[in-house]
């Protein structure tokens, strides 16, 4: 404290009423432009999702848990559904698993596009990229509407499979959309990753070394942005990820640019995964019916899923009723926010770097609050 008191500290409140903050308050201690401390103050959107889930049976429970991350609903729902399936001891049909992988990867693209646009916005004065990425989500949202019936927040996964079959007649359109999207990704690279001012803003800003990333518990693309190849899809394959050929994206630099680059390259990988899944999808049933009124066997299960923001775990305990007794969720944003709060101690941070670093971690505060 004695070291700090010699400096003149100004505490700036960044949010919740701020043009760029989102539903969070972040207290920033500054000495002039230099940042001494970042203190995330979450909890503005706590809705008690874990408690709500105790009052829902396993089919109803998919709906509230999706509200955790609205741009990445499928991955979140998958973790819940997989935990329920483990307790029930059932395996969904192969076709359902392929449909799940397709929807999960589309959700990953949608989520990365959104986060990518926000990161562009955070560097300042470049709102066009945000609107472009929003516009490029449209074709995927239309496809999802054909498959699931809604543009987002699908509630499409159900223990034992998926609600509806994949319409084979939209395969052509799906592949055409993927081709269009690959062209757009190239445009983003030229307009955004090769922009010199963006490079100067994001490169060497907020460097997170691999050992720090592991020690502080960074999750998902942020960990891979520090060069640690950890991906639940590869390490502990769920659904049919072990039948699909893809690589885990890592970038060695560990700065904000690397984290955004990981997201960008993951979108390219996701396109490959979707293409393989569409081509290899077997025919057959898409759902094993499980009655929502069925009593769950006693026991507990933990499922890990690689969501767009990192590893999400759902721990479900059943005491033999129709509803789970307790559900505990570990969310990636909470872990990533802790890493952000340690940033000024690891590297030198200026006030203008705070939004860039924060949005390079792609936070979703509702995910942290639950």
């Amino acid at each position, binding site marked *: 404290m004695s070291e700090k008191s010699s400096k003149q500290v*100004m505490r*700036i409140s*960044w949010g919740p009423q*701020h*043009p*760029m903050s989102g539903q969070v308050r972040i207290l920033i201690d*500054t000495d*002039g*432009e230099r940042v001494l401390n970042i203190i995330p103050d979450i909890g503005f959107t706590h809705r008690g999702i874990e408690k709500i889930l105790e009052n829902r049976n396993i089919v109803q429970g998919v709906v509230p848990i999706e509200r955790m991350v609205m741009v990445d609903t499928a991955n979140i729902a998958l973790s819940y559904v997989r935990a329920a399936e483990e307790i029930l001891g059932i395996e969904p049909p192969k076709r359902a698993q392929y449909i799940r992988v397709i929807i999960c990867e589309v959700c990953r693209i949608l989520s990365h596009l959104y986060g990518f646009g926000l990161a*562009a*916005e*955070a*560097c*300042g*004065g*470049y*709102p*066009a990229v*945000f*609107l*472009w990425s929003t*516009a490029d989500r449209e074709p995927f949202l239309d496809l999802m509407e054909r498959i699931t019936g809604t543009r987002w927040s699908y509630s499409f996964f159900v223990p034992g499979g998926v609600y509806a079959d994949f319409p084979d007649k939209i395969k052509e359109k799906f592949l055409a959309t993927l081709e269009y999207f690959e062209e757009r990704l190239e445009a983003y690279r030229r*307009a955004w990753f090769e*922009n010199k*001012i*963006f490079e*100067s*803003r994001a490169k060497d800003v907020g460097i997170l070394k691999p050992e720090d990333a592991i020690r502080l518990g960074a999750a998902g693309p942020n960990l891979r942005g520090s060069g640690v190849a950890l991906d639940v899809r590869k390490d502990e394959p769920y659904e049919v990820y072990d039948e699909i050929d893809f690589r885990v994206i890592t970038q060695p630099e560990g700065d904000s640019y690397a984290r955004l680059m990981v997201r960008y390259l993951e979108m390219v990988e996701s396109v490959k995964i979707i293409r393989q899944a569409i081509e290899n999808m077997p025919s057959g049933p898409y759902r094993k019916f499980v009655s929502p009124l069925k009593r769950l066997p006693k026991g507990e299960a933990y499922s890990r899923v690689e969501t767009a923001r990192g590893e999400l775990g759902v721990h479900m305990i059943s005491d033999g009723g129709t509803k789970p007794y307790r559900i505990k969720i570990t969310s990636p944003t909470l872990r990533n926010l802790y890493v952000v709060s340690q940033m000024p101690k690891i590297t030198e941070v*200026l*006030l*203008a*770097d*705070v*939004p860039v670093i924060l949005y390079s971690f792609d936070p979703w505060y509702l995910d942290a609050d639950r």
Partner: protein
Amino acid sequence: MVSLNEIITSVMNFIMLNLKFFIQVLIIPGLLFILLFVTFAVWFERKYLARAMLRIGPLYAGRISGFLQPIADFLKIFTKEIIVPSDADRRLFYLAPMLLPVIQALTIILIPFAPDWVVFRGSGFSLILFFAISGLAPLFPLIAGWASNNKYTIISSLRTAYLCIAAEIPLLLSAVGVVILTGSFDLIEIVEAQSKMWFIIPGFLGAIVFFIGILAESERVPFDIPVAEQEIVFGWRTEYSGILFMLTMMAEYIGLLSWSLLFITLYLGGYQGPILFGMPLVSHMFWVLVKLAVLTAIIILFRTVFPRFRIDQAIKIGWKYLIPIAIVNIFIAIIVKTFFPSII
């Protein structure tokens, strides 16, 4: 007793005697021109930015592409309540946004729109006078930021101060290159000296420095650091509301206008251009307006393609790159003036 009739007659006589002066002050390059420029620039910026962002932008106010939207916004903001923070220094809080656009607009009286169409010639030192007046402008954001007594505004006003010092020295140094080429501080003589060749060709480096200096001085992207929305809400304008906010926004565009006009005068040949339809006065003004439209369109276009610099990067650009380039430009000007005096 003086009758009302006599008063009206004498006032009319005064106006008729100084008709040219009144036209200059009230129409061009005075009040009406400035207000029209601000309105049109705001509309163009919003519309162009919307197109770049795949939106439509203003559409309804004034049938053609919503070109009356800035006026509608002005009327709306005009009716809003002015909220003064309880901890603010009331007098300075009111004063700063009122004086800022006046100071910015005052520099425009020095700009020649035609050989004999300038409000104030400044006895042959109008370039120095321009810098002297515009040097006052950065004080007002500083005062406003301090008077608002808010953390965001104080950070922003200090950023303004840093940025202006980093930008104004290169601006002055690159203007010195032009002065050496011409041998005069008079803006009309500078324009007349460009009848053969615009100074952007011999003073290319100076023009680049001056252009970047304009961006920094008028707080345009990528140098909009004092109003960085992502960090400090709206910079020194955060606490302003109603008509005071409108004045600060107007000041931004008037600053852009006055610096663009100076750039045109120094580097793009001012009012020089082919005489159209045998009307020298009209065509001189026409060329100034055409050059102004092109230059401001380029500056506004930057907003769609560039993120923002950090304050340390902006200061580094000013001191480390722009000042040496401006000094090189001075040497080039000396060489041109000494060895090839015939080409200018």
